[in-house]
C-alpha cells in the first residue's frame, strides 16, 4: 500500500498548527500534530490507534508547556493570555531546527536498512519525530504517560510490514 508523504504538504499543515498554537516558529511538535490529523496516512492511523489523536497530542503539549514553566515557578494562568492564540502570531513562516532535523532523519530512515523505500513514507517522518530523547515532543509524550520506546517499536514494525 502506498504511503507516500508529500513533505511540502505536511510542512504546510504544520505551519497551520504552529500558527494555531501561537508559535512564531514551526517545530517538530507541529509536524507531529499535523500527522495526527492525517488519517489518510499510515502515520496518522498509527497515532490514532495508539490513542494519540490530535486532541490528545494538543493536551500533551499544553501539559508539557505548563510543567516546564512550573519548574521555574511560573504559572501560565498568571498571564491572562487570550484563549485563542492564533491571533498572537502572524502566519508561522520560520522552520525551527527541530523540523530540519526531523526531515533529515526521515530521509535517512527512508534510505537506510535493508530494503530501502523508494519514496518517503509518513511512517519515516513519524519515526524521525519520535526518535529524539530530548526536546518538546518526548517531554510531551512523557507528560501523558506514553512509552516512547514502545511507540518507536510499533512504528518500526509497521514500517517493516509496509515495506
Amino acid at each position, binding site marked *: 500500500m502506498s504511503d507516500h508523504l508529500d513533505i511540502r504538504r505536511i510542512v504546510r499543515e504544520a505551519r497551520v498548527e504552529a500558527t494555531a498554537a*501561537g508559535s512564531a516558529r514551526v517545530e517538530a511538535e507541529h509536524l507531529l500534530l499535523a500527522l495526527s490529523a492525517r488519517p489518510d496516512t499510515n502515520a496518522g492511523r498509527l497515532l490514532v490507534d495508539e490513542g494519540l489523536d490530535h486532541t490528545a497530542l494538543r493536551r500533551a503539549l499544553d501539559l*508539557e508547556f505548563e510543567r516546564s514553566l512550573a519548574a521555574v*515557578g*511560573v504559572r501560565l494562568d498568571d*498571564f491572562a493570555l487570550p484563549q485563542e492564540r492564533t*491571533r498572537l*502570531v502572524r502566519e508561522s513562516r520560520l522552520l525551527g531546527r527541530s523540523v530540519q532535523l526531523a526531515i533529515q532523519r526521515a530521509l535517512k530512515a527512508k534510505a537506510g536498512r535493508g530494503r530501502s523505500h523508494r519514496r518517503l513514507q509518513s511512517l519515516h517522518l513519524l519515526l524521525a519525530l519520535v526518535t529524539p530523547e530530548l526536546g518538546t515532543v518526548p*517531554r510531551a509524550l512523557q507528560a501523558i504517560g506514553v512509552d516512547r520506546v514502545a511507540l518507536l517499536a510499533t512504528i518500526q514494525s509497521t514500517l517493516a510490514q509496509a515495506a
Partner: protein
Amino acid sequence: MADGEDRAPRTVADGLAAVVALRRLADLIEAAQVDRALSEGWSWTEIAEALGVTRQAVHKKHARRVAAGGRGRRPGAAAAAGAPLGDDGDDGDDGPDEEAS
C-alpha cells in the same frame, strides 16, 4: 516566593525545557501586550521604546499580524486606530513617526 517552594528545576533537562517554554511564553505575552497597547492608543514608537527595541523591529514583527485582524476582533479597538497599519512590514519605517502622542 511566599510559599517557600524551591524554584530550582529538578534536572538539567527540566531547566533547559523551562528556557524553551519561557521563550515561548515571552512571545505570547509580547503579542498580547502589543495588542493591548495599540488598543489603548499607544504608538509604535512608544511600544518600541517600552520594549527596548527599534520601531522598525516592533512594527515588522507585529504590524501584519495586527492588520490581519488581531485588533479587529477586540471590541472598541477601532476607536484607537491611528497607528500605521500597513499591509507589510516596511510601512512608514523610514519616515518620522507622526502619530506619537
